[in-house]
């Protein structure tokens, strides 16, 4: 029984967006014409560079709205930054024009919205959709329409059989390995208890951990699915306690994770907890769990302390929204600058040329290079060949990068 709220107000807002744009278009063009007339000369072409349309697909209503809304705020900030810095110079200072579409946390809606966005607008590229399940659909549609799509979604499937999808950040398979390696920060002989919700997400993530554990020298002492949305975590934690684990990996959504963390504390259990990524690395997690969250570890494809540029963007985002720039939103700002870099080199708004330019993307400075390791180079399968996740830890309400050594910005807090 899944019920998704349909927010008619926001739907109306994004339907109105192209209209508003065309009015601005008219103003710019007539303004340019008047100015040109005043100087008695009409330039041959591009008296005001046409804006470059970038599609943004995010769930701003429905169950994933919480993170989707943050993504849209970041996407707007990124576009403002590019435009204020003079737009795309090789296109006569063309401004980026963001066209936002709500995919309503729903795969069917994602398919139709992506289609509608592409056929209704002349797009140069698309970014989206935060949730892998939605991005997989959007990337299929974009592939067929031959519009490049750039995404921070981690599913490895996004790199299979696609030539228009670009993933500049760490892949899901790398997350599991990083999590296992992090358990060795706490103990030389990690005994890990893996508990996961019995859903597709929980099962696939935990199986990845199980497969990689032997090669990383990590012993898994408990491997237990549980029913998502339980009323009480005590029996489960009782079981973790009797397993003798010194580290706990929990593949859970927010509500279950909050119960698990509280119960571990109540039981006085001395285990380090790694909550993975997603809902675990957003400001809301700390707001809900409070001081108990301090010391908890996770993994992310981006963190606001990866570089000085990232810190700068983080400060600006904080000013706008009051929250720190979270994983996906931060990566999204870097993606926008990657698109700007590609447009600059392509010297064209044609999606085909933008795709070519994205496939040879190679940056190691500036906002486009805001990624763990500070380098982005797209390989033949659309992946960043330097892409890797960063291990993070909650420290006094902030997320600090603690792993691997070269990305660590703070020492691991012992709990």
């Amino acid at each position, binding site marked *: 029984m899944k019920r998704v709220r349909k927010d008619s107000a926001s739907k109306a807002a994004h339907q109105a967006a192209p209209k508003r744009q065309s009015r601005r278009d008219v103003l710019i063009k007539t303004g340019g014409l008047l100015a040109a007339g005043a100087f008695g000369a009409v330039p041959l072409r591009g008296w005001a560079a046409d804006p470059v349309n970038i599609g943004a697909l995010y769930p701003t209503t429905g169950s994933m709205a*919480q993170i989707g809304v943050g993504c849209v705020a970041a996407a707007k900030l990124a576009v403002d930054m590019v435009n204020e810095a003079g737009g795309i110079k090789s296109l006569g200072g063309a401004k980026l024009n963001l066209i936002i579409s709500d995919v309503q946390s729903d795969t069917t809606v994602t398919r139709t919205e992506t289609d509608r966005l592409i056929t209704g607008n002349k797009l140069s590229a698309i970014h989206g959709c935060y949730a892998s399940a939605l991005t997989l659909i959007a990337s299929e549609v974009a592939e067929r329409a031959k519009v490049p799509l750039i995404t921070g979604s981690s599913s490895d499937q996004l790199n299979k059989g696609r030539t228009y999808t670009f993933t500049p950040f760490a892949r899901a398979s790398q997350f599991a390995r990083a999590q296992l390696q992090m358990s060795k920060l706490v103990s030389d002989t990690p005994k890990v208890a893996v508990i996961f919700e019995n859903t597709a997400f929980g099962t696939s993530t935990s199986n990845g951990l199980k497969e990689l554990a032997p090669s990383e020298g990590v012993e898994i002492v408990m491997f237990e699915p*549980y029913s998502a949305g339980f*009323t009480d975590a*005590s029996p*489960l934690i*009782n079981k973790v306690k009797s397993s003798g684990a010194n580290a706990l990996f929990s593949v859970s959504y927010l509500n279950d994770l*909050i119960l698990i963390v509280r119960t571990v504390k109540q*039981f006085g259990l001395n285990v380090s907890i790694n909550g993975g990524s997603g809902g675990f690395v957003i400001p809301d997690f700390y707001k*809900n769990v409070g001081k108990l969250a301090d010391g908890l570890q996770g993994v992310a494809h981006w963190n606001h302390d990866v570089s000085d540029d990232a810190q700068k963007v983080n400060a600006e985002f904080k000013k706008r929204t009051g929250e720190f720039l979270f994983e996906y939103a931060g990566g999204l700002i870097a993606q926008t600058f990657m698109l700007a870099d590609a447009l600059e080199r392509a010297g064209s708004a044609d999606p085909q040329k933008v795709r070519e330019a994205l496939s040879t993307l190679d940056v190691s400075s500036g906002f486009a290079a805001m990624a763990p390791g500070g380098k982005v180079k797209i390989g033949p399968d659309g992946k960043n060949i330097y892409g890797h996740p960063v291990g993070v830890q909650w420290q006094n309400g902030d997320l600090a990068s603690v792993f691997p050594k070269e990305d660590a910005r703070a020492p691991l807090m012992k709990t």
Partner: protein
Amino acid sequence: MWETVAQAVINGLLIGGIYALVSIGVTLIFGVVKIVNFAQGEFVMIGMYISFFLANQFGIDPLLSLFVSMPVLFVVGVLIQHFLIRRVLGPNDMPQIFLTFALSLLLLNLALMLFTANYRTVHTSYSDEALHVGGLYIPVAKLIAFVVAMALSGALWVFLHTTDLGKAMRAAAQNRDVAMLMGINPDRVFCVALGIALALAGAAGSLLMPFYSAYPFVGQVFVLMAFVAVVLGTLGNVIGALVASLMMGVAESLGIQYVGADSGLIVVFAMLLLTLAFKPSGLGGGRAR
């Protein structure tokens, strides 16, 4: 070994206390008014949000907000009985089923619209504390919830057995027509029954708040357990629902410990099916008390 078992039993009893508050409400409504209230879980949700907002806006401890959530939901119960349920009582069950089901959907989606799907938690000084007895851990917030839940159940039992209104309620539960012939006003009795049942749901919400998150779907988690407890403990039997709730809590907890963490409910439902196979009227016997 014994410690693990004892811990599992304690965990089960503590959560069973909360199941009991929800299921007693359902069984009371069924016993007296003879309708199944599918929206009972949503009233738990409302109780939670009342406590959340009082704690968030005025810093009132969720346990104290019991004194707000219970009266508020009592009044809501009376109003719902008077303006909605009273009008569909009749020989046909369908309108009643649709009414409470629609109420559930309405409240759930209203909550989604007003409060969004976000999880809300309240921190209290005792939220994360636990008593250590021998090698066992007893979370303080759950212990308080359990004790208050048992006290409320006890108070209800005393009310039903010693006051005139309580006796009238039991009389109406046993045989509505005869009760009416004895001069009992069914409308008044039904209003009070609904009020009490919803107040108990509100109490469950307030008691949950120190250790569980509030979100629009939260009621559905508890109402499922409540329905099982109501059937297991014989429909309409308050003591039966109480005992069945505690048993289910323990069965679920032991199931998680010894069968698998995703099998807690399997044990609970196996228990239900076995009971129904051998004692179709439920553990409480065939007689409503």
